[in-house]
């Protein structure tokens, strides 16, 4: 616009451009000339594209908030994970943890935050076959018991008996499993 020419908005190709954006991504400079209206609309657009960009700010914001359930002031700040040495302070600043054991070390502070982030606190998804062997077996038992109850309701007693045998077989593996 410094060459005396009137630039036309690159978005609507109608109104004169009044706003100039310039950015460099991977060494490539790009210029954008927009009219005021288009600049506003794109601004609104970027706002929508924005939230993920600042996930750590969201986290940071939550943690720093007065009345946030995890806030324990200076006491929490002094917490450290015994496994990796990461401090709660560092987590509060970055939103990132130091190791898997940090989740235990900071659980009083983290649990409300997790609930707030996900709206739920209990994992219901996949369970790894080795590290989650016990849980896997327990879930399988639950599933079979539901199936058996359903079979009984439908008066499919033969099917129910078959499921019961499967349950007994599974329970054979762990001594303290409740009997059906």
């Amino acid at each position, binding site marked *: 616009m410094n060459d005396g020419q009137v630039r036309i908005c690159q978005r609507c190709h109608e109104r004169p451009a009044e706003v100039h954006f310039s950015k460099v991504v991977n060494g490539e400079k790009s210029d954008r000339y927009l009219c005021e209206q288009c600049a506003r609309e794109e601004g609104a657009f970027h706002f929508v594209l924005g939230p993920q960009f600042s996930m750590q700010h969201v986290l940071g914001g939550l943690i720093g908030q007065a009345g946030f359930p995890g806030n324990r002031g200076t006491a929490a700040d002094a917490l450290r994970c015994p496994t990796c040495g990461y401090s709660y302070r560092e987590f509060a600043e970055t939103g990132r943890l*130091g190791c*898997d054991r940090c989740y235990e070390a900071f659980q009083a502070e983290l649990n409300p935050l997790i609930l707030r982030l996900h709206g739920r606190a209990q994992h219901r998804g996949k369970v790894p076959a080795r590290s989650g062997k016990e849980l896997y077996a327990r879930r399988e038992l639950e599933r079979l018991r539901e199936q058996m109850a359903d079979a009984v309701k439908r008066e499919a007693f033969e099917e129910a008996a078959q499921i019961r045998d499967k349950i007994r077989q599974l329970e054979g593996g762990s001594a303290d499993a409740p009997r059906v």
Partner: protein
Amino acid sequence: MHPGFSQWMSGTGPESEIVLSSRIRLARNLAGIPFPHRMSEEQGRAMLERVEAAIQSLNPGWHMTFRRLTELTALERQVLMEKHLVSPQLIQEPVRFEAVALDDREGISIMVNEEDHLRIQVLMPGLQLEEAWQIANRVDDMLEQHLDYAFDETRGYLTAWPTNLGTGLRASVMLHLPALVMTRQAPQVFTTLAQLGMVVRGLYGEGSEALGNIFQISNQVSLGLTEEELIHNLAVVAQQIVGREKNARDHLKGSAGIALADRVGRAWGILTNARVMTSDEALKLLSDVKLGADLGLMDGALPYTFPQLTLMTRPSFLQVEAGHELAPEERDRMRANTLREHLAGKR
């Protein structure tokens, strides 16, 4: 590392006119070892060795190739990102002990020592989230036989960011939505998506702009729902956006037929005649031409798919093709030449 096209760019699969690709990513970590940003040099190297051994167990059946990023040039690393096979975070300088394992079709990509120890990613063309999950799940099962994952019954898979906790799953679709942008419906659609717990990003993920009217939509929440539920929810949302984009396209074709054909024709004219072109301009024009091809406003089909053409204009891909580094002005000339040759030469 050959710079060619990946299988996911084939332009096939359900709804592939609008859904460019479907992606499943699983975040996994090993128990008792600091996350990558807290690792010592020694722990980082040890992790690479453990994971490499585990990945080798997928061979010969899965045709995986394991590459340490330190063995690749900066340009080769950037091409991997331009092909969406690795995240921008993985190739952040300086690279230390990051690695990526790719299958020969470049549909499976396992990132090592990114923000989590492992990120298993499966990319497929079109709307195929369920199919991609099946594959990622099997790869995960096989790796878990060799690796002790950090997992707890309440929190699920433990991740560096609490935002990935639980399933560690991020499902996403890459959508081409030119008509929603032209009819100015996009901001409203995305506001609704945010309310549904979905995240919208640009072409290269976090913080990137929606260049070429390309948007990535993914789940925000990862804990408390099953993988199937999370994937189903995203698939339903994607299908709805596809429906709205189709409506907007019909509307544009009906109410602005000439203006649209003119815009497409002009884009084609510039793409096949220009001598200098920036990557942003190329992407914008390719988006117009792709829309034109979808709506039958072009004589015949494009010789390459939209993702292939997009990749051909990316800065690092161009330089690897050229065989050496290029200054930005040289790149802009080579980009224009490549497009003229590949678009006009075959028409």
